[in-house]
């Protein structure tokens, strides 16, 4: 479920986001605020996580799965002097698909103090869609970055060929492309071989 088919949200809920990735946390916070949640608190210092959580006194806690401090939150299921308010994981015995979707997106949700699960379902769904959106963004960024790297490599290889074989820029590029096609390789791979070879012949 995405933002488009959301139901009215519960603005009175206080939500804590525990995420060391500031960009992802910001994306999630924005999403929650757009959906009408005004009480959103981000915690990035996990050294005193329990104390921070108690000071904030949230209804819902969202934590990313890359965070080792998830195990610290699990302690809040227990009754002991270290724990003041019972917490449950957001799980629905009948709905393993939602757990799988959350695990897949890399996020987990905990609900505090006997809150009804229906009140939180929308928040988790929003969280999953924002985490997935962030992963896509990250992917795109990585691809853009590697495309940029490839362009640089190809430009260097072109320069080497132009000097060594007195070729025009177009002819140098055509040579790289032809070689790549003949060897079923990417142009960037051939370009890298040219650079490596040139280094060896220095």
């Amino acid at each position, binding site marked *: 479920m995405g933002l488009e088919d959301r139901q009215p949200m519960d603005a009175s809920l206080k939500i804590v986001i525990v995420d060391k990735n500031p960009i992802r946390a910001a994306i999630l916070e924005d999403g929650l605020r757009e959906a009408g949640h005004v009480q959103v608190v981000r915690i990035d210092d996990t050294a005193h996580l*329990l104390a921070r959580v108690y000071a904030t006194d949230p209804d819902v806690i969202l934590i990313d799965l*890359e*965070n*080792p401090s*998830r195990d*610290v939150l699990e*302690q809040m299921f227990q009754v002991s*002097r270290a724990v003041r308010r019972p917490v449950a994981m957001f799980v629905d015995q009948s709905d393993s698909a939602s*757990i799988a979707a959350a695990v*897949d997106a890399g996020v987990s949700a905990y609900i505090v103090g006997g809150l009804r699960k229906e009140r939180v379902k929308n928040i988790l769904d929003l969280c999953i869609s924002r985490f997935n959106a962030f992963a896509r963004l990250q992917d795109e960024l990585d691809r853009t970055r590697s495309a940029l790297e490839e362009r640089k490599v190809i430009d260097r290889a072109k320069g080497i060929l132009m000097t060594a074989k007195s070729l025009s820029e177009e002819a140098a590029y055509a040579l790289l492309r032809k070689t790549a096609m003949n060897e079923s390789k990417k142009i960037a791979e051939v370009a890298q071989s040219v650079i490596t070879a040139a280094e060896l012949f220095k």
Partner: protein
Amino acid sequence: MSRERLRIGYIPLADAAALIVAVDGGFTTAEGLDVELVREVSWSNIRDKLNVGVFDAAHLIAPIAIASSLGLGHVKVPIVAPFGLGMNGNAITVSPGLYAAIAAAADGSILDPMVSARALARVVANRKARGEGPLTFGMTFPFSTHNYHLRFWMAAGGVDPDEDVRLVVLPPPYMVESLASKHVDAFCVGAPWNSVAVDLGIGFILHFVSDILARAAEKVLGMRSSWTQENPDLVCRLVRAHQRAADFVEDVANREEVAAILAAPDRIGVAPEVLRRTLDGRMKVAPDGTMRASEHYLLVGRCGAARPDPAQAAWLYAQMVRWGQAPLSAELLTAAKAVFRPDLYDAALAAPASFVGEPADGIGAFAGPPFDPSDVATHLAAWDIKR
């Protein structure tokens, strides 16, 4: 033979040795398995990813397998353990200040866990009398051997783990810095973290867990019960690969190679020397270089350690009941014992090695009567401190 692709999760700890060596040492490949090892950062992640099927199997603290099967603290997904990855291997490390206080309050050798536990009770009482806050002990997970080992030890000396001290969950990689920053006064964790604290000069290893229990099931290779029913052949192949890997790990001649495999940056990622000491059971226990050796420090497949023992599952369930995590019932005890599957272990191996000898109850606790896995109520009746 077609190669079966499997994904197995683990936490970077020394007792993942049989699993890591099974894969990186080629033992799973020899069984026609193509295993992808996935390093995880929390036990919660391991549990969830095993439960929903992202992992086919996982390096799991034994109590999590039981808790998941009983539906304690989380969604109920029956997990079974056809192979024990390790017995013992945990240690209790304390700050220099607490070490000195316990030593000063002791009426005998603090190598004796009863002496150290009683000394801890005196330290706790003195702090209370002076109006100081409670000592804080770190452990790894609510359903963890570390939690139960700490509680069993201190309660035997008269310290109530819920009233007299604070027990807090800390991810293993944060243990050492938490001790250094005085966020905790002590912790119970597996290797290599105790050694890391000692090497930094900020901790003393007070006890090996083998001082507290002669045999304590620690990590298991956990799988969804439904998965083992659908894939009996894969279970056999995994058990065989792990037994061969465990034998390889235990052969002293291979130590150098094993330590190098485990130390790789994308595996456990600590100095090979620290892992070597752990496998040898030859540990530096104090910052001044004092060494202590114990052949029972960590058992990887030796002495029948790989064969799951339902009595161990019963002992862990008894601790869950003692500390208020689970109700006492015959059904739950049966379900807990059924998590440990010696039958699956035996079915996979031509000559399965089972444990015989001392301790007679298979547990060997330093305090209390011998453990009877069919009678948890008697075990609980032996203790004043319980929930």
